[in-house]
């Protein structure tokens, strides 16, 4: 990613710590100049605004998918021999439960993910670089989540535009390139390789490097190793969905 200084006349100078507002930070992280932006974030790591904003956007993105989630759940239950004859009350409960699960996964899970990533950076920081407060590292992970949020926007739009039956086929990972709908180990592995997520990891590396004052290569190696382990673990060890689903 670009690491040079901001030169836009209307922006405040990003090199001056704590000068950028929330929107300038968002645009700076995504496109303007992540390193300089993270320098600003590290100088004034306000986490409340970005956290609330991201969670709110996630929640808003969740709302238009509710009818699709319900419709897809109903369709899946009706076409599964084991659940085809469920009573209406059970179907209704399952549909509601599916919406709750999607809500938790899309709104709350990012928060958990930021905490875990911040903890991993803090663990790295215990052995390397200058001491960076957890709050600063959390702010870095939250801003590094922006590309994933962008993917969520694309995902929501595609889900809304697609038939409910195709909801599970909407994807932003490399699994998109596989033909057919067969869910095997290759699919599970490629499903973990999402360009938007990788973009987020690059931003995490840049932000972590700035926050801990450690060379980006060093942080990048650490993040890359963890990510490869995560991809392999999820791809090779996570259970395949039941046949027929």
């Amino acid at each position, binding site marked *: *990613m*670009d690491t*040079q200084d901001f*030169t*836009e006349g209307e922006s405040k100078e990003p090199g001056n710590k704590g000068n950028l507002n929330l929107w300038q930070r968002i645009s700076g992280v*995504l*496109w*303007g100049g992540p390193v300089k932006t993270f320098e600003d974030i590290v100088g004034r790591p306000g986490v409340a605004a970005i956290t609330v904003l991201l969670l709110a956007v996630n929640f808003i993105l969740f709302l238009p998918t509710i009818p699709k989630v319900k419709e897809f759940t109903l369709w*899946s239950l*009706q*076409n*599964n*021999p*084991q659940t*085809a004859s469920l009573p209406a009350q059970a179907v209704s409960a399952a549909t509601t439960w599916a919406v709750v699960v999607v809500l938790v996964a899309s709104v709350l899970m990012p928060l958990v993910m930021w905490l875990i990533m911040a903890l991993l950076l803090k663990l790295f920081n215990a052995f390397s670089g200058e001491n960076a407060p957890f709050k600063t590292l959390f702010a870095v992970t939250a801003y590094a989540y922006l590309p994933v949020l*962008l*993917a969520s926007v*694309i995902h929501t*739009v*595609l889900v809304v*535009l*697609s*038939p409910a*039956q*195709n909801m*599970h*086929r*909407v*994807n*932003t990972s490399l699994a*998109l*390139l596989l033909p*057919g*709908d*067969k*869910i*095997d180990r290759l699919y599970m592995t490629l499903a973990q390789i999402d*360009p*938007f997520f990788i973009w987020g990891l690059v931003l995490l590396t840049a932000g972590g490097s700035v926050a801990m004052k450690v060379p980006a290569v060093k942080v990048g190696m650490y993040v890359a190793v963890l990510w490869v382990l995560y991809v392999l673990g999820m791809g090779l060890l996570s259970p*395949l*969905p*039941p*046949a*027929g*689903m």
Partner: protein
Amino acid sequence: MHFLKKKLGKMSWKKLLAGALILGLIVSVVAINLVRNKNTAGIPVKTAKAEIKHIQDNVFATGRVRLVEKQEFYSYEETTVKEITVNPGDPVRKGQVLGLLDAGELDDQFSEAKANYAVRQSELEDALNPRQEEVDKLKADYKRAGADYKNSQKNYERTKQLFDQGAVSAQEMEAAEIDLTAKETAYVNAGASLKIKESGPTGPELASLKAQLEQARNRMELAQREFDRTTLTAEMDGVVIAVEVAEGDHVDPGTRLITIGNTDKVEVTAGVSEADSGRLKTGQKVKVTAAALPDREYTGVLQSVSPGALVEAGNQGSQIEVPVIVRITGDSEGLRTGYTVDLTITTVDRDKALVVPYEAVVEKDGQHKVFVVEKGVARERKVETGLDTELYTEIKSGLKDGDTVIVSPGNIEDGARVSASNNVPPAGGDK
């Protein structure tokens, strides 16, 4: 436009490249998703291939090894073990004495019964075959009685002449008459005795004698059996399986003392659950394994299947089982009586059969049908089925090797678009 050019002109080429990359990524992701989702997804189904394979179906049970030929010795009354001459594992021969029990009064009872029998036997023998001396004596008695009778007749006639002439008194005449009658009676009796002796006993007398002899013989045999039980004698060749008492032990009636058997001939008794029992037939092959012999595998055949079921109490409540007996056909070395063994009874064994998972076959309108996946579309096919195993159904016609069928098709209709998301892994066929 001019403003945009001016704006872009101020940007570095790196920023432009990054922007282009981001834009390209978004457009690509959206485009690929739109292309992929142009068609509605098929109903996700589980599929499997119709395959030619060796199918086998088994029924499993747990049984216990027992000897086909064995002899168990028990005490029949309260007594003491006098002597034990064998140890477990000793080979024994038919007729070999394995031990002695204290006979107590049984010896005397047997002797007495034997003597009584001899007496009764002698009595009947005498009655049926009289001794010549006795016959001769009766003949002499008869002859003498005849002579006495003749003398008495002459005396009577002489006395009567004298009485008619008045030479003797009436009293003398009456005495002669009485003497004649007595001699006549003695003569007739002697003749009868001789006749009876010469011809032997008849009718009720003979029957009574024979009954007494039979009774004596029964008592003697009973006494002998009771006495013989105190001598533990092998009635077969074999091996001592167990010795459960020692010399000097006091034993109650019914105590098992020694068990011998032929270890070359063993069988297994087991109970098969009622759900599986319908698949059993005598003569089916059986694989026998024992936890005590993990490296060994024995073979046998199902020898008998009980016509009735029993309620067996188990750890998980009572269950209904059908008793079966498995005969070990091959080498049974190492298989000890009392071992718990696992039985694998092969009920179906077909070398080459076209099969599909049994869940793929559905019954519609009284016919067996499957759904074949052709280019993402479910096609209903009528099939003729054969053998059923726990996992597979044999297809005799309607499918060919390699056809993809839907497993548990549920509400799938002919012509429905389906998505085979995960094939059922090919099972080994054998279970």
